[in-house]
Structures are given as structure tokens and as C-alpha cells.
């Protein structure tokens, strides 16, 4: 069946070439052609691939998806569709609706500090020299069918440019909203450029507002110039039949500093592919992840840290709680290149299994070619500590509450690292709810669930009743 989808994609590509290529500069057109050839050759990843061994896309690719090569004509009042429900969370929201930038026709927003935000397609027209310098520079190393497909197909996405020496005072929130009454196959391409000694806090959300099974294949490239600091949060609020392949590429220059969070609470199949290149001395990456999954959910966190230059540090912490038949994959790969001496790299993955039907696949992997390094990794799979349980119970706390307390404490190690206070409180709240089993998917959550009055539309043809 995957071949059916592949055929459909290749047919559509040929048929809609003029729409996809649109106003692209020639270089980008050429890039798309090669990427498309790559996709045809590489195909969708299968479980025969080492990196995809535990994430089987077959079932999701068997579904029929629709592709759109033009944004819908309808007028969208994005403020009505999407309201960020994190209390007191003051952000600058830029949204994609079904994969298209909402205010596509308007020029790019230019903030007073010089930061430029807006549609990726639009940026390609207005700032081709910036785009060409960075576009596909960081993602090209990771050759797989989905990335190639994204390069070939993606028509829109978000573009953020922070000039040198600017500290963005407001958090920028990128939101991709899926809301269409058919199975969408969406491909976004985002490019974030952070100048020298600049600072950016970025929250990247994927939301679905329907009960259709969509497939989102997002590629985000983040370029960090010398001394840049980026705080990156990846959240999603998707229904349980949606698939999200989220590939994020960070390129770090000297003395840059990255903190990244991948928090997976809701979604059917989620794969966070985080690839970091530490290509400058003294750069530092902190990569954190938290996943609380149940039912048939599948979360796959792939983290690749490439220590290309000496004196860099990286620190990974991924924790997960699994219930029901859910599955989680952690695949951490640290590569220390020959001359990357004085490297410190740490990796930690801890999992708690609550049910006998849940599965964890962990592969913390070190590849080291330099000798003056300190690297360590650890992975554990287990249950809550019996002794701790006993201790709490001996203080008169019921087993149920003791369990909640311990699970919460387990997750809190990651949550406490979040520096945006309103966001931290919100996630904290959600995790607690989730642990209590109060967080049903219909609550439409991650950033939304304060809005209890939200009305859902069901398209019922009244005349037939």
C-alpha cells in the first residue's frame, strides 16, 4: 500500500509542478528536483532501516491522504480557531492553517527590534539571499525519504530571522493547526536564523481540531550563530489517529547555547527527530524530553548529537511513563569526532512501564573517536521504587496517591527545567491531570483545555433526520 501512496505522490508532483515550484529561485527548483529523485530512490523508511526499526509507518501510510497544492480560499479568523490557553502566556503567535501560513498575502512582519517573522514561501521571494544561504544546509545530512519528500514538496512554513545582538523580549510561538474534514498529508518547512549573541525563545506546537487522521511531515532548520541562545519547546496536541514526523535540525556555532524540550502528551504516532551539530568550540546543548503515553500511542525520540569541534558539552535527559499498549522508542546517538577533545556528553533515558502490554525500546549509543572525553550514558526501564512507595505509604498516604506522587516526581525532573513560568505551570498541570487519568483527548489540550465552553461542530445533514 505504501507504494500506492508513493505512486500518488510522484504523479501529483509531476502534475502540480508549476504550483509547487511557483516563484522559487532556480536553485530551489533544482534542489526540489534532486530531492524528489532522492525520495523516489529512498522511498518511505521501513522497519528494515536501523533508525526506523521500532517505528513502523506501514499502517499509517496505508491510509489514503489528500494533498493540497494551494491554500483554501476561505477566510480564516485564526484568533477564533486558535487561542492559546496557557494563562498569562504572552507570546507572539504565528500560525499555519492546514500547512499554509495564515496571512500569506501580507508582507512579512518586522518587529521593532529587527526580527522578521512570517511565511516561508513569502520569505523566499523577499529574502532569497538569506534563504539560499541556509536552506537545506543542515537537513541535507540526514538522508531519508521523508526529509527528501519534504524538501521536494513543502510549499510553506514559518520563517524567523533574528538579527545579530537582539534578545527577543517575547516568546515566539509557531502553531500548526490541522482542521479539515479529510485526511491531510501536510508538509511544512521552517527556517529559523538566530544572529550573533541573539536570544530567542521558541514554542513550536502542532494542533489538530478534528478527528481525522492526518500525516504531518515537518522539517525545521535552526541556525545559531556565534553566542546565540535558543530555548526551544516542542509540544503537540493532536488526536490519537494523527501522525507527526517532526525533524528538527540545529546547527550551533561557537559558544552558542541550546535548550530543547520535546514534550509528548497527545498524538497517535509522534516521532521527534532532533539532530544537533555542535560545530563551534564552547557550544552547549541541553536536550530534554518527556513522554506520557497510553492506549495505542507511539512516541519515538531520536536524538543525534554531533560533537564536531572540541570543548562542547551536551546533556540529554529523556523520561517517559507508558501505560496500556503504548510504545516508546528512545534512540540517542552521540558522535564525538576525532578532534573534538575535551568533550563532555551525557545521556540519560528513564522509563516507567505501568502495563504489561507497553513496550520500550531504548538505544543509547556512543560513537567516540577522541580520547580526552567524558561521556556516559544510562538507560533504565522499570517501575516505581518499592522502597519509596513503602516510605510514603508508611506515612499514611494511600497507595493510589503515593503512586501519583512518585510518578509526578519522576516527570518533574524534566518539567522543573522549563524556564518559562506560565508554560511550566501549564505543563505541570497537564501532567498531573494526565496522571490522574483526567486528561481525555477530547479535552483538546496541551495549550487549550481551559476553554471548557469550546463548541464542537459536527456536520450533520439535518434534512436526513
Amino acid at each position, binding site marked *: 500500500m505504501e507504494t500506492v501512496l508513493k505512486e500518488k505522490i510522484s504523479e501529483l508532483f509531476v502534475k502540480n509542478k508549476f504550483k509547487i515550484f511557483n516563484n522559487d529561485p532556480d536553485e530551489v527548483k533544482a534542489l526540489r528536483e534532486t530531492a524528489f529523485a532522492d525520495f523516489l530512490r529512498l522511498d518511505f523508511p521501513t522497519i528494515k532501516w*536501523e533508525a526506523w526499526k521500532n517505528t513502523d509507518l506501514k499502517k499509517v501510510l496505508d491510509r489514503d491522504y489528500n494533498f493540497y497544492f494551494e491554500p483554501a480560499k476561505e477566510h480564516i479568523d485564526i484568533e477564533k480557531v486558535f487561542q492559546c490557553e496557557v494563562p498569562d502566556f504572552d507570546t507572539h503567535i504565528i500560525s499555519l492553517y492546514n500547512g499554509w501560513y495564515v496571512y500569506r498575502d501580507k508582507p512579512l512582519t518586522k518587529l521593532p527590534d529587527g526580527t522578521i517573522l512570517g511565511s516561508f514561501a513569502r520569505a523566499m521571494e523577499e529574502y532569497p539571499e538569506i534563504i539560499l544561504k541556509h536552506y537545506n544546509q543542515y537537513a541535507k545530512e540526514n538522508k531519508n525519504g521523508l526529509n527528501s519528500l519534504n524538501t521536494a514538496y513543502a510549499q510553506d512554513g514559518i520563517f524567523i530571522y533574528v538579527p545579530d545582538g537582539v534578545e527577543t523580549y517575547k516568546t515566539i510561538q509557531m502553531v500548526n493547526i490541522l482542521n479539515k474534514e479529510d485526511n491531510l498529508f501536510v508538509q511544512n518547512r521552517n527556517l529559523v536564523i538566530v544572529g550573533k549573541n541573539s536570544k530567542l525563545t521558541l514554542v513550536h506546537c502542532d494542533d489538530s481540531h478534528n478527528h481525522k487522521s492526518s500525516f504531518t511531515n515537518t522539517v525545521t532548520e535552526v541556525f545559531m550563530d556565534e553566542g546565540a541562545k535558543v530555548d526551544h519547546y516542542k509540544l503537540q496536541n493532536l488526536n490519537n489517529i494523527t501522525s507527526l514526523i517532526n525533524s528538527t535540525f540545529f546547527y550551533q556555532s561557537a559558544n552558542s547555547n541550546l535548550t530543547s524540550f520535546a514534550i509528548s502528551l497527545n498524538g497517535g504516532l509522534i516521532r521527534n527527530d532532533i539532530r544537533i551539530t555542535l560545530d563551534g568550540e564552547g557550544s552547549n546543548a541541553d536536550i530534554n524530553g518527556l513522554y506520557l503515553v497510553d492506549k495505542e500511542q507511539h512516541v519515538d525520540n531520536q536524538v543525534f548529537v554531533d560533537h564536531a569541534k572540541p570543548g562542547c558539552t551536551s546533556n540529554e535527559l529523556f523520561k517517559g511513563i507508558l501505560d496500556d499498549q503504548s510504545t516508546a522508542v528512545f534512540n540517542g546517538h552521540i558522535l564525538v569526532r*576525532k578532534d573534538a*577533545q575535551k568533550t563532555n556528553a551525557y545521556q540519560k533515558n528513564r*522509563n516507567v*512501564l*505501568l*502495563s*504489561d*502490554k*507497553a*513496550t*520500550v*525500546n*531504548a*538505544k*543509547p*549509543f*556512543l*560513537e*567516540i*573517536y*577522541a*580520547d*580526552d*572525553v*567524558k*561521556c*556516559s*550514558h*544510562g*538507560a*533504565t*526501564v*522499570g*517501575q516505581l521504587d518499592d522502597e519509596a512507595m513503602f516510605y510514603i505509604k508508611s506515612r499514611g498516604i494511600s497507595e493510589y496517591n503515593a503512586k501519583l506522587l512518585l510518578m509526578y516526581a519522576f516527570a518533574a525532573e524534566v518539567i522543573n527545567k522549563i524556564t518559562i513560568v506560565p508554560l511550566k505551570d501549564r505543563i505541570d498541570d497537564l501532567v498531573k491531570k494526565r496522571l490522574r487519568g483526567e486528561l481525555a483527548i477530547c479535552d483538546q489540550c496541551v495549550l487549550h483545555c481551559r476553554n471548557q465552553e469550546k463548541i464542537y461542530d459536527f456536520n450533520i445533514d439535518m434534512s436526513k433526520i
Partner: protein
Amino acid sequence: MEKDNNNIIQEVTRNDYKYGFVTNIEMETAPKGLNEDIIRYISNKKNEPDFMLQFRLKAYERWKNMIQPNWAHLKVPPIDYNEIIYYAAPKKKKELGSLDEVDPELLATFSKLGISLEEQKRLSGVAVDAVFDSVSVKTTFSETLQKHGIIFCSFSEAVQKHPDLVKQYMGSVVPPGDNFFAALNTAVFTDGSFCYIPKGVRCPVELSTYFRINSAGTGQFERTLIIADEGSYVSYMEGCTAPQRDENQLHAAVVEIVALKDAQVKYSTVQNWYPGDKNGKGGVYNFVTKRGMCKGNNSKISWTQVETGSAITWKYPSCVLLGDNSVGEFYSVAVTNHHQQADTGSKMTHIGKNTRSTIISKGISSGVGNNSYRGLVKILRRAENSRNFSQCDSLLLGDKCGAHTFPYIDAQNSTSIVEHEATTSKISDDQLFYCKQRGISTENAIGLIVNGYAREVLKQLPMEFAVEAQKLLTISLEGSVG
């Protein structure tokens, strides 16, 4: 000091492989190449019953459709399987009755290796089965063992004398088509050791096999089968060497262990095949499949290995923990120097309830060697309360070598606990400084630190081996400096 260290490294580099001599002994060899006729030839030569031939042919059929695995972190030059001689045996004049009848040239070879069959027999109480170019030449101590009902003989002898046991257990742990090298071995293996410990018997001596590749252009394909019946115990040792040659030689062995209820098997290896010269020329390709099955409840299999030889090592001694409360252990020290490459580790498959496994792996890389640990811990759904602890440490000596860790954890049971930890480091200047200011030379200090680093594994080895292993470690590494 830097200069000093370099000198020492060079000295070590010049250290010759002391087992690199060739024995001139009349050999009987099969023609080069691999095809059905060769397999029939081998089977016929060994006068095997039909089930053996069918077993070999089945494996060959499977092998033909397999490709050499390339997933390991190794650079394996292409191997032409048709350029290898699959059968080489010392020419036999007549059946050997006692040690006196063994070719004196052969005996000399083994005493040169420090495996004096005669001496071993008398002094150390270790029963030895010596395998010379794939053919078992002599098993000592058989009579003593027979008193306890223990069968310890060459594989070919077992096929003739105990076909039922062979038929029942051969291939039950490593099936003919298990992997490329196992299938190759199954098709062409010429000899090996066979061992059966009857119910409730605690084997009074350590059993030992010594493997030696001698002829040029031959591959060594031996097969070991150990069956520990209910409540029995055996400690088994394996050692190996090969002459120094410029060409690469292939060694693809299979070891199968079956531990029935309450049985315990301890398997120790000191692997010292010729590693090639310092430019990476020559050396043995060591592609070995070792697997133990804890079939009965409360059984235990423990692997200990010291890997210092071979140009390429591809070896994953594993345990299938089928019986409830069964235990699997893996202790390993792997050293790579010069151009040596090693991809080794263990696989623990937890199937039964309350099964436990421990993996302790110590990798040491120096020169331009690459040393990888690759392991899998798999906890199946019904393996309740199972427990695994893995620790794999790497020590880097020099900035041109590589150390890698590829642990896989698949856990499907919520009552099980899996822990994995690993560190990579070099010998710290602090440690060296401390030793040196106590008047210990750099060379000795490194020997001390490396031996201390590997202690946890070395202490698992039987005494006879521990001494050899410690010496080997020092030879391979003294003077290298991180």
C-alpha cells in the same frame, strides 16, 4: 614525558606475536572452494551418518541465499569464500590410542604454546581437547571423566558414539540458518568438542579446548556442543592461537550450550588469534556465534571472555533465559591495538519468570583500533520480575582509536527492571601522576591501572586462565598512554 611515552608505545608496537610459528606437519587437505561436493567430501571423510550430511546441506542451502552481515561497526575486506580450504587435517596413520602415539611434532607445537597435553593431564587436572586445524587431535583425561559418566570428546567421535545426543541437541540453540557465519559453519564444520555432563554430576576438572590454525589458506570451522543435564555443573575453557601470516584467515565457530534444570555452565575464553602486524596486514577474522540456552528452571550460564587477538572480532555470546529463575552472565574484556577491530557484546533474551542477567563489558582501545560494544537486552511479555544490569566501560589510549557503545533495550514487561550504564574515558593524568610519585614507572602504572580496570572481569576467570589473561593484557597494552 610525552617523548618517553611515545618510545614506550613504539616498544610495545614492536612486541611480536609469540605464537606466530608454523608447524611442519603432513596435512591432508580438501580442494579449495565451497560447494555441495566439498560438503559431501567432508561428511564422507568423517564417515558421518546421513542426518549429519542432511543437516549440513540444509545449512548450505540457507547460506547460499544469505549475505554477509554488514551492520557491525567493522570494515571487513571482501572475503572470497571459494578461496578457502574447508578441510585440513594432520595426516592420520592409524587410530591414536595413547598420547605417545601422537605425532611428536604436534605435541611439540602444543608444548610451545604452553599447552603440554601430557603435563596438563598430570599436573593441573584439566582435561584438554586440542583442535589442530579444525581436527581434534587428542583429548586427555577421558578415562577419569568416564568414571563420572561425563562425555568429553571430539565432535566427530560424538557423532559416531553418541549420535542420539548429537541429533537431539545439535542446532537446537543455534539453528542451521541462524546467521551467515553460523550457516557457513554448520555446512562445513570439521570438528570441535562435545561435552555431556550427566544428571547431578559436578565435573571434577576444568574442561578445556585448545584451537590452533596451522595450515595456510585454511579456514577454521569448529563446533562445540555442551549439554549440562539436570543439576550438573561444568567449567569450560577455550583458548586459541594461529601462526603469523600475511594473508587473512577465517575462523567461524559455533558454540552451543544447553543447560537443563538446575544446571550451571561456566564458559571462559581467552582468544588470542593472530591479530595481524602493526600495519594491519594479515590476522584472523574471527566471526563466532556463541549461544547458551537456559532451558530448565534455575539454570545458569556464564560467559567470560578476554579478547586480545584477531584482526576482526565479531562475537556476541548470548543467553536465552527460557527457564524460570534462570541466570545469564557475560563478562568481557576486549582489547584492540594497531589496526584491530572488535564488535562484540552480548544478547540476553528473558523469556522465563524471575530471570536475571548481568553484562559487564570492558573495552580497551589503543593504536588505530576500533572497539565496539553491541548488546541487546530483551524482556519478553511473560518474563515477570526479570532483572538486567549492564555496564559497559570503554578506555581510550591514544587519540586515533575509537570506542563505541550500541546497547539495545527492548522491554515489554512492567515488573522487570533493566539498567544500562556506560562510560568512556581515558587514563587520567591524576591516576598516572599518583602512581608515578609513588615510584612506579609509567609503564607499570598503566599496567596496574588497566588491570585494575579489567579486574571485575578477570576475577571471573578460572585460575589457570586468569594468569594467562593478565599477562596478555599487559603485553598488549603496557606503555600505552592516554
